[in-house]
């Protein structure tokens, strides 16, 4: 029987709302899928699209971004920036062949621990359905280069 594919997901959570929500879920011992590696940002507005690309290029199968509900951002309106970046990033990824469903933006307040846990579990299943991404580790491909070097030394 083949092993079930376990998605690797990186989750960027904002400190004030969604990270606390994840905390709440933890203290309430709410079960949710362990596939998400959480990284805390002070604000979802801190999310640089570079982080998402680095995650996917580094082996993640999906990226989750969570922040405060619109209007509730601890820094007033930075989560709108996250929203706009997210939407533009998703379009760009479509052009690169990355399914739009591999990145997701969720608003969650500190009190919504159970809801967040549910969303995380659901996202893991969505990624499981999409399958592994397996983006090539471009920098770890020395063999081709060495072989060519040998070939050049032979002809020179």
């Amino acid at each position, binding site marked *: 029987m083949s092993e079930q594919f376990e998605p690797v997901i990186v989750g960027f959570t904002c400190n004030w709302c969604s990270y606390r929500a994840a905390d709440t879920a933890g203290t309430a011992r709410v079960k949710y899928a362990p596939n998400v590696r959480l990284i805390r940002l002070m604000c979802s507005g801190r999310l*640089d*699209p*570079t982080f*998402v*690309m*680095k995650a*996917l*290029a580094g082996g993640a199968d999906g990226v989750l971004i969570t922040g405060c509900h*619109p209007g509730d951002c601890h820094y007033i*309106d930075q989560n*709108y*920036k996250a*929203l*706009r*970046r997210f*939407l*533009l*990033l998703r*379009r*760009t990824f*479509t*052009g*690169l*062949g*990355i399914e739009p469903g591999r990145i997701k933006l969720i608003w969650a307040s500190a009190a919504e621990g159970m809801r967040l846990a549910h969303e995380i579990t659901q996202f893991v299943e969505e990624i499981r359905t999409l399958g592994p991404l397996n*983006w*090539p580790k*471009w920098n770890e491909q020395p063999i081709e*280069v060495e072989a*060519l*070097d040998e*070939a*050049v030394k032979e*002809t*020179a």
Partner: protein
Amino acid sequence: MSDKPKFAMYWAASCGGCEIAVLNIHEKILDVDANFDVVFWPVAMDAKYKDVEEMEDGSILLTLFNGSMRNQENEKIAHLLRRKSKILVSFGSCATEGCIPGLANLFPVSEIFDVAYHTASTDNPDNIHPVPSFEVPEGTLTIPIMNPTVKTLAQVVDVDYFMPGCPPESHQIAAVVDLVIQVLQGKAQLPPKGSVIGAGQSTVCDECPRTRNVKLIKAFHRIQEVAPLDPALCILEQGVPCNGPATRSGCMARCPQAGAQCIGCYGPAEGVVDYGARLITAFASIIDAREPAEIESILDGIPDPTGQFYRFNLADSLLRAGRSNWDKDGH
């Protein structure tokens, strides 16, 4: 036998624009000729590959290498010139970040062949594609194998300096020529290895004379819908996607001064990890909308975000290629 230091310039998968940019330093080319012995420069003189192979390792003081690694011959000559050169400069956008032909990384190489040899005007009933090795009655003919992805020079060999631009502007090339001659004369030091030379540290916006205000964009426009633009006002502010905010300075913002948006040929500004990511951030921050539906409607004004954000830089970006280029499962 001249004992002037040796100079070489080579084009891998290139368009030749970098060669022209070097020649556009006009009279200054005489300084190059006065201070160097040009030993290999296929556009200009008749030295062949075997002449380079016969040179001693490290005997060429300075090699300007333009063009990307599209096929195995490009890589072979990159390795060859790296061995024969003391200082190897990744010259121009193709060598440094893949440039526009790097967009081929959005597709599998097989599709390049499928399209090229079956265009509207191509008569190819036997579905012939060029092959690396072919027997003719007289012997075997070979052509270089295409790599599955376009690579930059630094992804293949160790590079000493990077000079961005498509092509590098001639006043910058002239400045670098002056610097090198000063170094030869002991009057200046070479910058640290790995530096970007012949360009600025900031962004194109810094060099652009247009007025910039706080930007609140309600729509992105294609330039032909709104041309000619107000010549005094920031192009991005007028809703035309201009890549100035993420692009390295050094070109003097010539395109915006001529009424056209910056398309990003000087590559990422200092400190930018992924050029496309930086532009996504910049464009997202000026959109004046909060509702997803309205934001999406505004984003419809950029119909090709992948090309807009990775036009020159795809081969050197974090993701380096589109999925169909490498994914064997046909995604």
